[in-house]
């Protein structure tokens, strides 16, 4: 049955290609288009059939012998049971839970201590004064950033020949 289908597909492909060329040669454009369409359908069908055949072959090739698979499955080494200790301990005193609770209590105590020390050191008046001293270095000047008239007039002083300073002072003087 498969052979008949393949032969029918190949025959359709060849005959449609032949008639398409003949129709083109006879200037019968509509017939040529029709046979071209048949040719395209046959080509797609054959290509699909070839791809499916190749896929089924690959599937057959990858199929394993069930007897061999059973042997391999039976001789497979046992997987290590990494939580066996937990199951064994569950009948006696549960060490895991004890450690968990004990560790939590210790961590909570440490956190409480850190919190107490931090509250004593960061919010004290001495700390605030120290912070004020450190911030003075980067604070704005007392008169602001706008240059006063005295400074503007000082640009004419001999020796003040920096072009950037002159430009800044000129702009400030125009305000």
């Amino acid at each position, binding site marked *: 049955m498969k052979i008949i289908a393949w032969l029918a597909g190949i025959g359709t492909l060849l005959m449609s290609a032949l008639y398409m*060329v003949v129709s*083109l*040669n*006879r*200037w*019968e*454009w*509509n*017939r040529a288009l*029709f046979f071209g369409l048949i040719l395209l359908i046959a080509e797609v069908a054959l290509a699909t059939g070839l791809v499916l055949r190749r896929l089924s072959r690959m599937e057959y090739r990858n199929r394993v012998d069930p007897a061999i698979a059973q042997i391999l499955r039976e001789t497979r080494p046992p997987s290590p049971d990494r939580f066996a200790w937990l199951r064994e301990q569950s009948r006696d005193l549960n060490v895991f839970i004890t450690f968990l609770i004990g560790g939590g209590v210790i961590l909570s105590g440490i956190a409480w201590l850190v919190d107490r020390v931090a509250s004593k050191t960061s919010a004290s008046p001495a700390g605030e004064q120290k912070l004020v001293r450190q911030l003075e270095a980067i604070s704005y000047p007392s008169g602001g950033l706008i240059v006063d008239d005295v400074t503007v007039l000082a640009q004419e002083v001999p020796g003040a020949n920096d072009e950037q300073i002159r430009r800044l002072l000129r702009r400030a003087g125009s305000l």
Partner: protein
Amino acid sequence: MRKLKPVRILLGLVGLGVGIVAVLALREATLSTHQEVVGTGTELIVSAKTKGGEKSQRLPEMVEAQLLTCRLEVSSDFDGPIERLDSKRFRAVLDSALDDTNRRQFRGCVDDFIIDHLQVNVVELNVIP
């Protein structure tokens, strides 16, 4: 990379050559090349049949529609009406002598599927001296 056998290379070259020749031959066959033809007109006799058409469509008017469509391709007019010779055959005369390319083009158009449910076959297409 798989090494190609000489036989395969030879077959591939032969296939390529055949393909090129076929395309060139088809190009030559479908190329319009016109030349002067001595004659007063072209006589056309066709046989036609219809199947599965509308009831209001009559065979003579379907044939006339197809022939009028095809004469546009060769830029020629009919000299007189399309005569009905018998139940299937029709005769028409074109007012110019068609050269070889135009005759092939006209024959191909008349034989082609132009009008639905109508099949026309050229019986004779001759230049009138």
